[in-house]
Each structure stands twice: as structure tokens, then as C-alpha cells.
């Protein structure tokens, strides 16, 4: 069932992430069908489409928060079902639409991921992560006192604390007001530029897709309708 992607390809130059015939259905309703694409390391790809197209479903499958009904995903040639879920989720760090911060301080939230694997994140590292999301000095602040934009930036820093190889961003600004949206987007842009991390962004905001991605996967009714450069797809 879970053969190695490398074994199917004689070449060693397998793609960083390969999605193969991915499908998902729930209660007989098909939410995604036959999705296939490849992503190279360092790429910035947007999954774009109208609401209800299956964008969030797809990104949840990439993080394996749900189980695909068909197909699978290969990460550096390895079927992701062979990778222990916790390890996979640390490698493919997900930032959800809602911050979903845990009650407590900002610092406690940022420590959570490393702590779950028994590592203690030093205060300096927490401060460095907070600095990367423009929240210096926020470590001791209660998360209940944060604005929406601040909470989403803490969410981003919390994901970065695991040092993921891929950032999965699920509509990271859609729950925010206009000002906060800009702040968070700028933070994301700065992180992508400074870290060169591979990024998969889900968004229904055409302008945001234009600013944050080089390539677009256009999703409609649970199917991949187009795959090309951002300019090509958005101007089509």
C-alpha cells in the first residue's frame, strides 16, 4: 500500500513533495478528487479557488490531520503514511485560520511544540522567534490580552519553533481586520524571504496570492483545474 516513491522512479532526483491522486470523501460526499502535483524545495505555492473548492481540506490532508480516502503524499520520496504522524507534522508546520492559542502566556505557547518532544526552548530562542514576528518582549504576556493580529503572529512563531521544512498556511489572514491582515502578511513575507522555507498557502484572496506566491494551484469543486505561475493563472 505504501511503497516508496523513490522505488517507483529510477532517478534519485525525486521532488520534495509529491501529491499523487489524492482524494477525500466524507459520508459519501467527495470533497477532493484525483489531486496530483509536485512541489520543489523552496517553492511558494498558493492553493487558490472559491470557497467550498476544497482548499482547506487539501491542506489538512497535507498535514495528515485527516486521512486521504484515495492516493497519498510523498515527502522526499517517502510515502507520508510511513512517517510517524508527529514527526511529519513537525516537518510540515501548519498555521491555521484561527490562532487557537492555548490558555497561558505567549512564551508557553511558543514552547509547546519543542516541549512535546521533550526539548526545552531557551528564553533567547523564544525572544528570537518573537522578534521574527515583530513581537519582541511579548513572552510573558497572557494570550487573552492579544489582538487578533498579534495572536495570529504568535501562532506563526509557535509553528516556527518546530523549525518546519514546509509552512502550510491555511487562510492565515482571513479572520483578521484589514490592518491586522497587512501586519500578518508582511510578517509572513519577511519570514519567507529570510528563511527560504517552502510554503503552501491557502487563500481565496487574489491580491494576497499575487504577493505571497510564485505558483498557483487552482482548485474548483474539489478538482485541480490549473497549475502554473501566479501571473499565468491569475491573468487567465
Amino acid at each position, binding site marked *: 500500500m505504501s511503497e516508496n516513491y523513490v522505488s517507483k522512479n529510477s532517478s534519485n532526483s525525486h521532488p520534495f513533495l509529491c501529491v499523487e491522486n489524492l482524494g477525500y470523501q466524507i459520508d459519501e460526499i467527495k470533497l477532493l478528487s484525483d489531486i496530483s502535483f509536485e512541489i520543489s524545495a523552496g517553492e511558494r505555492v498558493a492553493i487558490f479557488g472559491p470557497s467550498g473548492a476544497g482548499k482547506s481540506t487539501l491542506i489538512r490532508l497535507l*498535514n*495528515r*490531520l*485527516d*486521512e486521504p480516502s484515495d492516493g497519498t503524499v510523498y515527502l522526499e520520496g517517502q510515502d507520508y*503514511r510511513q512517517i510517524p*504522524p*508527529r*514527526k511529519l*507534522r*513537525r516537518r510540515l*508546520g*501548519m498555521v*491555521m485560520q*484561527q490562532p*487557537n*492559542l*492555548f*490558555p497561558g502566556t505567549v512564551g508557553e505557547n511558543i514552547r*509547546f*511544540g519543542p516541549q*512535546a*518532544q521533550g526539548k526545552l526552548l531557551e528564553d533567547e530562542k523564544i525572544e528570537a522567534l518573537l522578534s521574527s514576528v515583530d513581537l519582541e518582549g511579548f513572552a510573558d504576556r497572557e494570550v487573552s490580552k492579544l489582538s487578533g493580529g498579534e495572536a495570529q503572529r504568535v*501562532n506563526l512563531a*509557535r*509553528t516556527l519553533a*518546530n523549525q518546519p521544512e514546509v509552512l502550510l498556511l491555511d487562510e492565515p489572514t482571513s479572520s483578521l481586520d484589514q490592518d491586522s491582515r497587512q501586519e500578518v502578511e508582511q510578517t509572513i513575507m519577511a519570514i519567507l524571504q529570510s528563511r527560504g522555507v517552502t510554503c503552501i498557502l491557502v487563500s481565496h484572496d487574489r491580491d494576497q496570492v499575487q504577493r505571497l506566491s510564485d505558483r498557483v494551484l487552482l482548485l474548483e469543486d474539489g478538482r485541480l483545474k490549473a497549475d502554473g505561475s501566479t501571473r499565468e493563472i491569475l491573468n487567465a
Partner: protein
Amino acid sequence: MLSQWIENQVLLGAAQAAITLLAALLVMVLTIRLNLGLKKDILIGLGRGLVQIVGVGFLLTIIFSADLWVSLPIILAMITAAGFITVQRIKAIPNALWISLAGITAGAGSVILIMTLLGVIRQDLTSVIPIGSMMVYGAMNANTLMLERFFSELASHAGQVEAGLALGASPEQVVVPYARRAVTAALIPRINGLQSLGIVWIPGAMSGMLLSGENPAYAGFYQFVVSGSIFVTVGITVLISIVLVRKQVFSPAEQLLIRSEEKA
């Protein structure tokens, strides 16, 4: 007053039950007036309660002098019934019946057995069955409360649970705050019960002993034994159940199986 007119004790009991039933039906009429939608539940509760408890009364009359081992199938039947009653309230949790049976058997079963072997519960049917039933009942209520609370906590915090999973935490790690709240919710009524013992209420066991002329000081000690044993039963039951249920709400690939409104 009734006892002056009716000499037969069973008939006297039936007449007293009829008066109580009448009062309970008046409460039901009030709930109908207030549109609370409880009519069916109240009728089933009153009907079942009356038939079941009188049935047990007759059963005890018949087996009054039977051997102690007869209490074993009776207690097991009570535990089984408690498991099924729990599941009626928590259909959404996979394997809730087995979890409940395991928790209640471990909690109530072990305490009844140890207390009986030690002679803390008098080794005869008329002691083991009623005191055992109190433990099974306590275990059932605590187990239901715990499972219901655990499920609703997870459903309303599905976003945080999945955020934890997405950060590479294990299911056991992400459910800690919700499991803690569920266990606390189940234990608090029992802790309150212990704290208010003798001040706010004098429970049935002690009342019965006082009515039958036992030494009040001994009745006090014995009531503490019963209440303390029920606390131990409840504690073991909910701790076993929470350990078992934690795994049930996640798939083998550590995905949350409960679909909340925000996830649907």
C-alpha cells in the same frame, strides 16, 4: 396516618408509593405547563424506578437467606445495566459501552470485593447488595459525567486540540486540560458529599441504621466507610475510563475523530 388504616406492610408501602407518585405527577404537570419537554423522561423515570426498586425488594425477600455468592451475578447485572445506561447518554464516543463496563467493574467491582472480604461490608446478601448498588450507582453517575464532559470539551476545543496535534504533540498530551476538567467535574460532587457529610445531609445508610436502633456513633463511622468507599469507587472508575477513552477519540494516525461545529 396510613399505617393506622393498613396493617399489611406491603400494601402500606404501595399506598405510600401511590401518594409519592401523585406528587411526582404534579411536578410533571408543572414541567408540561413550562414547556420543558421532560414529560417522557419523567414518566419513564417514575415507571422504571417504581418497578425496578419494588422488583428488587421482592427479589431480596425471596433470596434473603441465600448464600453470599448469589450477590455476584446480581452485582454483575447491576454493573452491566449501569454500562448500558451510560451509553444512552454518550452515543458519540466509540466503544463507550466497553469503556464504561471496564471502568465501573474495576472501580465498583474491586471495592465491593475487597470491602466484603475484609468484612467492612457485612458478609450477607442484605448488606452486600444495597451497599454494592450504591457503589455501582456512584460509579455510573461519575462515569457518565466524566465521559459527557470530556466529549463536550473536545468538541468545543477541537481547534486547540488539532493545533496541538499539528505542532507534533501526541493525543495524550493535547487532551490533558480537557481530561483534567472532565475528571474534576466527575469527582467534585463526591468531594462535596464528603465535605458536607453530617452537616448538610445524613445519607441513607446511616439513616437506616439509626432507624433500626444501632449505636449512633457506630452508624457515623459506618456511614463514613460507605461514603469513603463510594469515593474510592468513583475515583478508580473515572481514572480507568479516562485512560481508555483518550485513545478512542483519535485514529491510529493521531487524527481527531470528533467532528465539532467548527470542523464540519
